[in-house]
């Protein structure tokens, strides 16, 4: 296969991957953020303490998270058809991707929001703020650097999932790697795909870490700043010296 043959395949695949991952990330954040916050609020000692609701939400999240993505994709076929009118293609893949990522992101949000100092919540309550104010003015802004890191992690996970979505004809880089690289022994194309994925993931991780670091520093935290992951190896060695 020549480069001129590969090039259009790859650019279409890149675009498909970004399309699927972009939309499913957006939906995962929109769905997972409130869910994660709700998990904290309804917990014992939370502002909206409701042990039953907490248990129910927690269980749903756990079940959805423990399901292998490929099974989830098949299990959701009817739902996908109902939403998009089809079970094949990019749009159809977004549905299981988003649904798979919502509980994943929700757990990360839960962890991030739990880190917020309870004293801040108390302070806003003492000013006459209600629960919604606490969420809007304290929980979300104060955990923003962590939330951004969580989003990065989610995007990277979704890129991995999207390769599997390729098996239902969604296209994307993973699909190319399997169909051409693996099934037709186009080893070269497979390695190029892997290289592109590696670069894309690195870029996303870098951008995410950078954003989180900047926000963290703006808050002027004096504690250790999370290191850029790309530089982790060198940083780690210099630490041990």
């Amino acid at each position, binding site marked *: 296969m020549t480069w001129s043959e590969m090039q259009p395949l790859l650019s279409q695949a890149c675009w498909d991957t970004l399309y699927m991952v972009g939309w499913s990330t957006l939906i995962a954040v929109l769905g997972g953020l409130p869910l994660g916050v709700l998990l904290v609020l309804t917990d014992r000692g939370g502002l909206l303490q409701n042990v039953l609701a907490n248990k129910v939400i927690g269980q749903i999240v756990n079940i959805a998270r423990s399901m292998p993505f490929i099974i989830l994709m098949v299990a959701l076929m009817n739902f996908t058809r109902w939403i998009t009118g089809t079970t094949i293609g990019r749009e159809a893949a977004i549905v299981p991707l988003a649904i798979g990522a919502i509980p994943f992101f929700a757990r990360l949000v839960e962890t991030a929001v739990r880190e917020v100092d309870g004293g801040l919540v108390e302070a*806003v309550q003492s*000013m*006459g703020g209600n629960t919604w104010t606490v969420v809007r*003015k304290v929980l979300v*802004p104060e955990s923003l650097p962590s939330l951004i890191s969580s989003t990065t992690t989610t995007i990277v996970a979704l890129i991995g999932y999207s390769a599997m979505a390729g098996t239902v004809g969604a296209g994307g880089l993973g699909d190319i790697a399997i169909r051409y690289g693996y099934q037709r022994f186009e080893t070269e194309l497979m390695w190029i795909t892997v290289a592109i994925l590696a670069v894309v993931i690195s870029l996303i991780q870098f951008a995410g870490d950078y954003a989180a670091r900047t926000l963290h520093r703006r808050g002027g935290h004096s504690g250790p700043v999370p290191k850029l992951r790309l530089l982790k190896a060198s940083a780690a060695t210099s630490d041990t010296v």
Partner: protein
Amino acid sequence: MITTTGLTKVYRSRGREVTALDGVDLHVREGEVYGVIGQSGAGKSSLIRCVNLLERPTAGTVTVDGRDLTALAGRGSRAGRELRQARSRIGMVFQHFNLLSSRTVQDNVELPLEILGKSGKERSRKAVELLDLVGLADKAKAYPAQLSGGQKQRVGIARALAGDPRVLLSDEATSALDPETTRSILQLLRDLNRQLGLTVLLITHEMDVVKTICDSAALMEQGRIVEHGTVSELLATPGSALAAALFPVGGEASGDDRTVLDVTFHGESATQPVISQLSRTYNIDISILGAAIDTVGGLQIGRMRIELPGRYEDNVVPIGFLREQGLQIDVLGREALLVKDGAR
């Protein structure tokens, strides 16, 4: 201004009950600085949190500025609109400042105004004015992490004042600060109390705080208020634990057959040469074990620990003489002595 009656708070966890407040009656007059002092675990924190109902009392009522807050309470742990409105008129300052790290100093001060729904222009005008009042006008654009502890607490105070409160609650506001910063923060609270007529209820475990700025004080032990009153009343109360703690004098008796007295001078009696009169009148030798003069709550107070020869029974007349001079006399170790005699 703040009145609590029969305030009781019981925490239940896993079948165990802990009584943090056991029928606390507190009365804070308008415009005064009232200090509640006690060991950690005495219930001070629960008390101040019950005043703006951050903690819901198990029983009893809280009235602030003529409003019964306990009657406004929403259902369960959530505060209804009226309670939230009432809270916005009560400022609160915290030990660990509780500033939002993601907001600048000015935005932190604006936060309560945002909650009150004030316009952007009004908010920034008010915030700038308050930062000026607490002496941090040049730090408006800084983030809390760039400030020192004392500066953070100043921001906390500016923020607490944003809603034009008539009452300020201070929860160990100076406990995380060094002595010098503590003094400047207390001075600021005192100034605000005088300038704005702000009523301040503070809790602390530091006697110095009470000594420096409080008009009245209460001592808490095991969820109860065991002593309370204005600082001058307390100092005039014989055997007052608070007075002794506010104004300690040291010194041990030199022998068994001695009588040790704590003599407290205040007002006019401080100027009379009573000790030499006592010595001359009864022809006894008096040793001074310890003495101090200090200003407590704006009053000049002197306290002296003296030793008279002979047991208490031998010194009833001289002690009577001292009391006649308008001095406050506490006889030390008297109870202990009586018990020992009884045992024999």
